[in-house]
């Protein structure tokens, strides 16, 4: 298989036979969303009454939220320490439970039992809403991601747009928390976060759009389906046409822009411990802090999920079920962010804006135009 055939696939998709491709892809859950599968299993047909549909959707949403909150708890509390420790020659938690795993329980209890301190003259509704906006915007994004094993809540025609729109809502949360905290460090952090997200969201979406040029659809299940085609066969080993292989340049661009989007080194300027104390999080404590902290990890996972969906074939993978592969890919991206965090210096805010507007933006448009020409010429 070659690029031309993928493009041919893409052409198919635009011609309306994309659905056929989607059904070919077993990993994508057969093109059915989770509520549809659920109602099918219960013998209610694909279109039960709206009340039941809503109920199934809530069940699915709960499942996904619980799944990712669990991963955030394990990855954020325990995994983060272990990974960072491995990178920095330490041992990390090993006393509470096997491999120190019970530290998750201990930490959860500790964090939640702390007092929520509301400083004087904070901007009350905004200060309270911001910690909710952050994690919920990330969870919202998961609604349209095909997580494999049939776990996809909805599969709208505009899934691609929706997922970026949802994840961008986080900027609002960051700005709200920074602006309402009545603290200059938070204020600076919030402004930095906004400036950074503005500078990196555009390259992120534009780079993502180059994938859409290949697939010809914004529907994420079809983006995944297109990637399940083999790219080339090397001595019995079939390499699928994941867009990370088809267009590595876009993949790297996206990975870098995503680092900035989730605020990890070398782009962790909004938090910038050492400069801004904790940036927009400075004034938060107790449960509010937990929400912000969780939200940060959920965003990294959402970033990982988007990368997996657009570039790494979504839930596709041998032997293991799709959902497991999806989680593995998400955690791989998470591992990458932690690695950067241990090894990379933080760029200065002005340098970062410069890299975003003058570097990544230009390159992402160049990538888009080149991809468009390539697709246009070959198709």
């Amino acid at each position, binding site marked *: 298989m070659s690029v031309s055939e993928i493009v041919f696939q893409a052409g198919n998709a635009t011609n309306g036979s994309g659905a056929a491709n989607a059904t070919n892809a077993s990993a994508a859950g057969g093109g059915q969303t989770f509520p549809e599968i659920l109602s099918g299993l219960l013998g209610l047909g694909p279109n039960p009454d709206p009340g039941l549909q809503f109920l199934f959707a809530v069940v699915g949403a709960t499942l996904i939220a619980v799944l990712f909150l669990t991963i955030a708890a394990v990855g954020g509390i325990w995994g983060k320490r272990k990974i960072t420790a491995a990178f920095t020659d330490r041992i990390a938690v090993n006393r509470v439970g096997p491999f120190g795993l019970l530290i998750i329980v201990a930490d959860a209890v500790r964090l939640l039992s702390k007092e929520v301190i509301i400083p004087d003259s904070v901007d009350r509704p905004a200060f309270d809403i911001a910690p909710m906006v952050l994690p919920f915007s990330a969870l919202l994004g998961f609604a349209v991601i095909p997580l494999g094993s049939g776990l996809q809540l909805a599969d709208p025609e505009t899934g691609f747009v929706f997922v970026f729109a949802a994840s961008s809502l986080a900027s609002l949360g960051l700005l709200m928390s920074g602006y309402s905290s009545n603290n200059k460090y938070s204020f600076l952090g919030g402004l930095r976060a906004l400036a950074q997200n503005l500078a990196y969201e555009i390259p992120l979406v534009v780079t993502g759009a180059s994938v859409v040029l290949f697939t010809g659809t914004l529907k994420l299940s079809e983006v995944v389906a297109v990637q399940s085609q083999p790219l080339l066969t090397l001595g019995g080993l079939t390499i699928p046409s994941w867009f990370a292989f088809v267009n590595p340049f876009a993949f790297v661009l996206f990975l870098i822009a995503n680092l900035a989007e989730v605020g990890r080194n070398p782009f962790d300027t909004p938090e910038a411990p050492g400069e801004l104390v904790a940036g927009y999080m400075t004034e938060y404590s107790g449960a509010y802090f937990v929400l912000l902290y969780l939200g940060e990890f959920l965003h990294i996972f959402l970033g990982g999920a988007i990368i997996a969906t657009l570039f790494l074939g979504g839930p596709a993978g041998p032997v293991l079920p799709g959902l497991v592969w999806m989680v593995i890919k998400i955690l791989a991206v998470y591992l990458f962010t932690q690695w950067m965090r241990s090894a990379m*210096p933080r760029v200065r805010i*002005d340098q970062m804006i410069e890299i975003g507007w003058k570097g990544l933006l230009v390159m992402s448009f160049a990538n888009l135009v080149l991809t468009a020409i390539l697709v246009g010429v070959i198709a």
Partner: protein
Amino acid sequence: MSLERPTDRTDTVGVTEEGLDYDALADLLGDRVVSREQHHHTEAFTIRPDEVQDVLFALRDQAGFDHCSNVTAQEYENRFETIYHLKKYADPTQELSVVVPTSKDNPVSESAEPVYRTADWHEREAYDLVGIQYEGHPDMRRILLPETWKGHPMGLDYNQEKPQIVTLEAHANPLEDDEHDAGADTMYLNIGPHHPATHGVLHIETVLDGEQVAHVEPDIGYLHRCEEQMAQQGTYRHEIMPYPDRWDYVSAGILNEWAYARTAEELTDLDVPDYAQVIRTMSAELCRIAAHMLAVGTFALDVYGEFTATFMYAFRDREVVENILEDLTGQRLMFNYLRLGGVAWDLPEPREAFFEKIRDFLDGLPHKLDEYHDLLTSNEIFQLRCANTGVLDAETAKQYGATGPVARASGVDYDIRRDDPYGYYPELDWDVVTAEEGDNYARVLCRLQEVEESARIIDQCVDLLEDWPEDDREIQSNVPRTLRPDDDAEIYRAVEGAKGELGIYIRSDGTDKPARFKIRSPAFSNLQTLPELAVGEYVPDLIASLASLDIVLGEVDR
């Protein structure tokens, strides 16, 4: 970059082949010199308090005294006295003390700030602790003690017993005269005293214009522990030596102890056996490695973020040094290992195992330093962040009395180990590391290279110690049980501490305790350069510049 002293000696007044010609200097100043007296190692010219600037300008511009090393203030029964300890960066053995007595009822002296910028903080400290006023000083207020403090604690009539209760309400609100008025676009920001990047309890009053720094004012004194007063209450022989460990407390202890040892030994005319000098040299350089590792590690912390590998690597390697020092001294930070006339005890037995441990460390060090260069100095983002930020040029560095790696990274080739030799340094083969750029990057690079040089010194010391004949291992010379230096003897001596020139001034009064004990802290002078480094830069560079100065608040505040 060599052991040879720079030979650039222009036609400055008083410089002769045999050393400094004080008569020529006195001729230069004419009748402005009221009297001359002899201190250890130098002469002191007494001048009138209203001619300070005239005299110092003449000495700086015509006699080449470009380094105001220290300013000591003290109170006698009948007068106040300010002593400016002048040196030359090109040759610190050429010293001159300028004594400015002022009367008791009107302790006002002309400020030296227009001549030497470094006098700014030194004179504020003198005002704060002793109570001398400096006319023409740009900012005459307390520096170490709170603004609301009553009295001057090192004055003779100060009541030590009277409690000083300063309630929170009585403190001035730092926001009260905020430079932020309705029309201005600037923002006042308190960095510290509780802030992750201040390396202790330092408060930096900052005015920001957007993300850029418009004004910086370090506010120190949060860790002031009256180290000078405490030393004045201890006897020379044993009771003062533990204090220096607590100045630069991040494992530079033996370097600090040596500052006291050198001063007190020369004051009381004690010899130190060669064997002890070698041990001192070796252990001091181990301390320097530990201190520089910490400096580089915390710098990485401030530039990278809190989860950086470099920080942990630095601590891992520092730990090895700490273990060696623990074997030697029994302590990991507060060594108290040096004694007047030598060291406390010989190397630990079995000696071979001890040498083996040091050699293992030295053998592994080049590889570890490569790791730092991989992670830090050759990282492009790191270069982007650190090169050309926080630039300190050589002239400004000299004006502020900057010393140590901070000065050397700005191209000031000044290292007391070479220029005013002590210990066993002159016998060993090593280089002084300098750089020209004077930016944050150069300061980090200098420290990393100084670690290499220290390793070279230690290596040679271990060689020497291994072959030292067993019956010649004299660790202490014969020291009288009670040391009583001559009445009214004055001395100012310095060593190369981890952060730069660590000097001590002692005036004896014939008893077994010093009458005045003044510490010249390198970090105190280096920190003064912060506004020069940071104004106009971005907030992250302010933090990086502060980290690159490598201050330890225990030494700044004393």
